[in-house]
């Protein structure tokens, strides 16, 4: 306001002041206008820049996790080492531990290198085994135990390379960095290069990352997100089965039946506050009520699902109420007019019409729950290795498992940088799920939304 009363206000009697001649003051005001607009554009550009930076970081760091370096070599399964009695008795076979298999695999690697006349520059030829993952002996053993008839034959195996070799081909590990590394020497990388040239080693798509189980801290090359994906799935089943009916029922009551009184007010205030309570507080609630008092098993998807249900309920209730409110009163009046009871008018007419909106809200709520991590930390869904698929439906709900975001957090905490790549890769998978759910929600809204 002061602009208009200031002494340099509209120039009195200044003949030059017209629409065609900008005075300094007009210039200043126009410049301020342009600056202001530029700030707005800059703000939006900054926001979008962060979005792009985030996506670039995710894709750039995460995509390599979907590829893995494999070594394909023929392994001679010598009977003398793997089945001394020669009777293929499963119990005797099981007695040979992974340690018994290790030399078999190492010998096979050495033989394969020699066959391709790749020089082994180590004092002990055995040291070349560091190229392979620590998991390969177990892999060969499992195959043999499942198919005892293979003993005595030479079988082609596709074995995981160690995470450092894998990182070398992905550009994460350099020769200089290996100078300080006890696990692998630069000579190993020379061999690896030669193996690639000879076709023994290849970096290909790694389905085990998507469908496999988590591995111990020392074997990042083996870790996958599949088991925690199943954990997340079971949690989402719990959330859907509880939050949708309860949320819809609560919204119907509040929107259609609730009288205007203190109790209703209390419920409404509660719902809007719960929507803003920090998610970690729900984790504390889950820990205290479901684990401390109700003695439900720790780390179980059932408990995770219950906690996330309480967290998503406000979201679902708010969106359901909005879509119930959008159904015009004339529908209710018409139903009541032909003799329906209040309950019938709601369940037979209003609810079906509001369903697309309700489903959209539910899917968005589910997506929110799927990405939530903090409450899961408190009910113990981290800190252990989700290495086994659940045996059945009941065990899927009750047995300890991880969830996708918890698994990502777990990987981010581990010391080996190879796990960071896994964590980014896990995020890609998580985001693909979230994106799919959101797209479904948008399509649902576009397809079924009615304007009255």
């Amino acid at each position, binding site marked *: 306001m002061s602009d208009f009363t200031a002494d340099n206000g509209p120039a009195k009697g200044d003949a030059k002041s017209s629409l065609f001649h900008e005075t300094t003051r007009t210039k200043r005001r126009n410049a301020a206008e342009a600056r202001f*607009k530029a700030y707005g554009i800059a703000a939006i550009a900054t926001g979008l820049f962060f979005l792009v930076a985030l996506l670039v970081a995710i894709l750039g760091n995460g995509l390599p996790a979907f590829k893995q370096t494999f070594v394909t070599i023929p392994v001679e399964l010598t009977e003398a080492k793997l089945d001394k009695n020669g009777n293929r008795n499963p119990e005797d076979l099981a007695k040979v531990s992974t340690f018994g298999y290790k030399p078999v695999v190492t010998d096979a690697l050495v033989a394969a290198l020699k066959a391709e006349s790749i020089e082994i520059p180590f004092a002990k030829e055995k040291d070349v085994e560091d190229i392979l993952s620590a998991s390969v002996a177990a892999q060969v053993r499992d195959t043999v135990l499942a198919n005892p008839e293979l003993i005595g034959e030479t079988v082609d195996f596709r074995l995981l390379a160690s995470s450092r070799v894998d990182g070398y081909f992905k550009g994460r590990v350099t020769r200089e960095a290996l100078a300080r590394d006890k696990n692998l020497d630069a000579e190993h990388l020379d061999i690896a290069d030669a193996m690639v040239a000879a076709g023994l080693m290849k970096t290909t798509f790694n389905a085990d990352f998507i469908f496999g189980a988590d591995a111990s801290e020392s074997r990042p090359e083996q870790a996958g997100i599949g088991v925690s994906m199943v954990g997340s799935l079971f949690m989402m089943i719990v959330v859907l089965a509880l939050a949708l009916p309860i949320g819809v029922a609560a919204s119907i009551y509040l929107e259609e039946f609730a009288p205007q009184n203190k109790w209703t007010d209390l419920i409404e205030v509660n719902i809007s506050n719960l929507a803003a309570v920090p998610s970690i507080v729900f984790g504390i*609630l889950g820990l205290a009520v479901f684990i401390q008092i109700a003695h439900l098993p720790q780390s179980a998807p059932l408990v995770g699902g219950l906690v996330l249900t309480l967290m998503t309920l406000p979201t679902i209730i708010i969106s359901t109420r909005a879509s119930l409110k959008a159904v015009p009163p004339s529908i209710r009046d018409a139903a009541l007019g032909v003799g329906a009871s209040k309950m019938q008018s709601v369940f037979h007419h209003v609810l079906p019409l509001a369903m697309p909106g309700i489903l959209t809200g539910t899917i968005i709520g589910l997506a929110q729950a799927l990405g*939530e991590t903090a409450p899961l930390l408190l009910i113990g869904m981290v800190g252990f290795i989700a290495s086994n698929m659940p045996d059945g439906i009941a065990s899927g709900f009750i047995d300890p498992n991880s969830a996708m975001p918890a698994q990502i957090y777990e990987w981010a905490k581990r010391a080996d940088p190879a796990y960071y790549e896994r964590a980014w890769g896990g995020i890609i998978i998580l985001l693909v799920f979230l994106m799919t759910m959101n797209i479904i929600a948008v399509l649902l809204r576009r397809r079924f939304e009615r304007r009255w």
Partner: protein
Amino acid sequence: MPLLWLFILILALGLLGFILGRTRALKDAHGDIRLLHSLPNYYGSNVLLAVLIPGLAVLLLWLILQPMLIQGQVSSMIPNTAYTDKGSLNLVMSDVRRVAEGLDIAVEQGSLTREQARDIRTELTDIRARLGAVGVALGSNVESYVLKAAQKYRTMNAVGNWMMTVAVLGAALAGFAVSMLRTNKDMRARNSVEKVILGLLIGAASIAILTTLGIVLSLIFNTIEFFKLYPALDFFFGTTWSPSFGGGSELGILPLFWGTLYVSIIALLVAVPIGLFAAIYLSEYAGPKVRAIAKPLLEVLAGIPTIVYGLFALLTVGPMLMTVFGSDGGLGWMQGGRSVMTAGLVMGVMLIPFVSSLSDDIINAVPQAMRDGSLGLGATKSETVRQVVLPAALPGIVGAILLAASRAIGETMIVVLGAGAAAKLNLNPFEAMTTVTTRIVSQLTGDADFASAEALVAFALGMTLFVITLCLNIFALVIVRKYREQYD
């Protein structure tokens, strides 16, 4: 799985009731539907509900009460010498349960007969080995009182389960019989069914209150426990945070609180200008096309899970800040990638869409007449925004900022991964500090023993967090609501 069977049995009884109730009503009206008070299905549903509700209610109550009763009975069998406090009693009781489970499994697999399981003695048999053979590994040898308690536990459980079956089926059948007898053509079946449904709807709506109650009670009780072990004054005004599970911890909240505040301030310094200017541009300047693209894109930032931001802070922003402010090659202000600045910047990015979409709504709610008046007097667009629209929208924007602040204070994953673990009272934003939420996570993760002050402090921290965010939220909502009333 007898529980599952019981459940299925009740369901089957309910379905049978539905069919019989429906037929009975129709028969009473001699097949003429017009003589019925309600539609035939309501008579069926009435019987169905009369079976399910008492049956399931008894089942649920029994399932809650039986373990409590048995626990009380069995724990009185354990000699006082075997435990010192409640925590170790719980440990003994979990041993008892485990042994009882083991005996059940042994009986099931046939390695023990029922009588053997009942009469077995620790003096005569090596229980641990016997149970180990059926796949139940025990941590230590079984004391005789544990075994006795386990055997008592098994008998009481068996009797309890048997009685439960009888009681549940009894209740269901009683409901069945009563509702069937009352079914005739003049019965107001629809009204009674609708009453039950309304009750269910009210129950569902009350869950919100139960949740709040659960949060408040679980926080309050554990916080009181904590203050019994650790003086409240030292907690609220202590300036050192050094928990050690061995004892002698100092648990002052001030350094955590400072860390939380510092991170939130930086986050708001990033989010508020960017979010506010974005909102102003989108609502006052942008054409419909730009708005249709930019607004959803900005809101994508809000849909990204916080764990992603956490990882972004830890692995991208942290190292990037290190190259500028770090000790080798940079300005030397920063010791490691985790710092208040790292977490604050990333949290600010997370909050941008939160601030912008809330402010956008509020700016749009300012009546067009006010803008027109200002423009008509010759003000430029930016003058209108600064001198008319923003003052009018100010209360709402303050509300939005408060909501964003409450978000920032309660945010967990970004600070867990990005802010570090050292509790310090320091002004350097490139220093690693820790926050309330981070400490809640680290004090409670993977820990089921709630007897020590070091674990219980997490509840006190949670309580503080809950109260602060609640106050901010309520304050913000009141402001927003009051403001809206002015123009609607």
